C-alpha cells in the first residue's frame, strides 16, 4: 500500500473546498537513469472522489500530470460530517486512497 493521500477540506457555507496531495512518482516511461536505462512508466490513471459513498468526480490522467499530484476542487451541497473519500489506481494496478470528514 502506497503512502496515504493528504486531504484538506474547508467548508464555507455549503461549498466544500477540497485539496489533495497524492504521493506518487508519476514516471512517464521516457526518462532514463544515470546508466541510460529507461525508467519504466508508473503513473496514476484514475482518481475517483466520493462524497458519502456517492461518486462526484472522476479524473482520468496521463503521465503528464506532475509528480506527487496536487488537485483542488469544490463540492456543492456539503454539510459538517460529510465524508469525502478518494481512491486512485495507477497503470501497474497499484491503488491508494484516503478520506476525511468535513468539519
Amino acid at each position, binding site marked *: 500500500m502506497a503512502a496515504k493521500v493528504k486531504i484538506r477540506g474547508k467548508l464555507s457555507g455549503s461549498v466544500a473546498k477540497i485539496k489533495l496531495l497524492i504521493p506518487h512518482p508519476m514516471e*512517464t516511461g521516457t526518462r532514463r537513469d544515470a546508466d541510460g536505462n529507461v525508467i519504466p512508466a508508473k503513473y496514476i490513471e484514475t482518481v475517483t472522489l466520493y462524497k458519502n459513498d456517492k461518486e462526484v468526480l472522476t479524473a482520468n490522467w496521463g503521465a*503528464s500530470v506532475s509528480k506527487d499530484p496536487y488537485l483542488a476542487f469544490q463540492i456543492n451541497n456539503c454539510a459538517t460530517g460529510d465524508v469525502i473519500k478518494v481512491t486512485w489506481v495507477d497503470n501497474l494496478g497499484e491503488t491508494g486512497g484516503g478520506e476525511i470528514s468535513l468539519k
Partner: protein
Amino acid sequence: MKLNRRQLTRRQWLGGMFALCGAAILPSRLFAATTTAFKATDTKAVFQDLFGDLPIEESDAVHLRTPNIAENGAVVPVSVSTDIAGVESISLIIDENPNPLSASFNLTADIVADISFRVKIGKSSTVRAMVKTSDKVYMATREVKVTIGGCGG
C-alpha cells in the same frame, strides 16, 4: 417445480457468468474512448477520440489560468474554470507533449466547474482547456513558454 441441488447450482453458475460478462464488457466500452485519447500522439486525434463529431468553439466563458513562462516544466500549475452550465467533462491538452492529453475530469452536478492541478510540459506549447457539454465543446487556449523541460532529463 422443485429444483434439486444440481439444477440450482447450474442456474446460479449461468447467472454468475452472465453477470461477469456484463461487468467485463460495460466498463471497457465506457473507458475505451478516454484510454485511446491518452495514447494519441497529436491533438487532432485527441479531439476525435474525446469528442467525436461534437462542434468545438473557442469561448471566453472558459477560464484557463497558467503562468506565461514556466521556469520548471515539470511542475506547471494549471487551473480551469467556467460559467457554462451542464458541464460533463473538463480536459487539458498540451499540444507539444508526446501524448497531448494530460487530464480529463468527469464532473457531476455536485462539483463546481473550477479545478486546479499541476502538469508537466516538455517544451513551450499551446495549452488547451476543453469544456464538454452534451451538445458542444468549448475551448480556451494559452501559450506557455518553458525554460526547463518537464519530460526527459
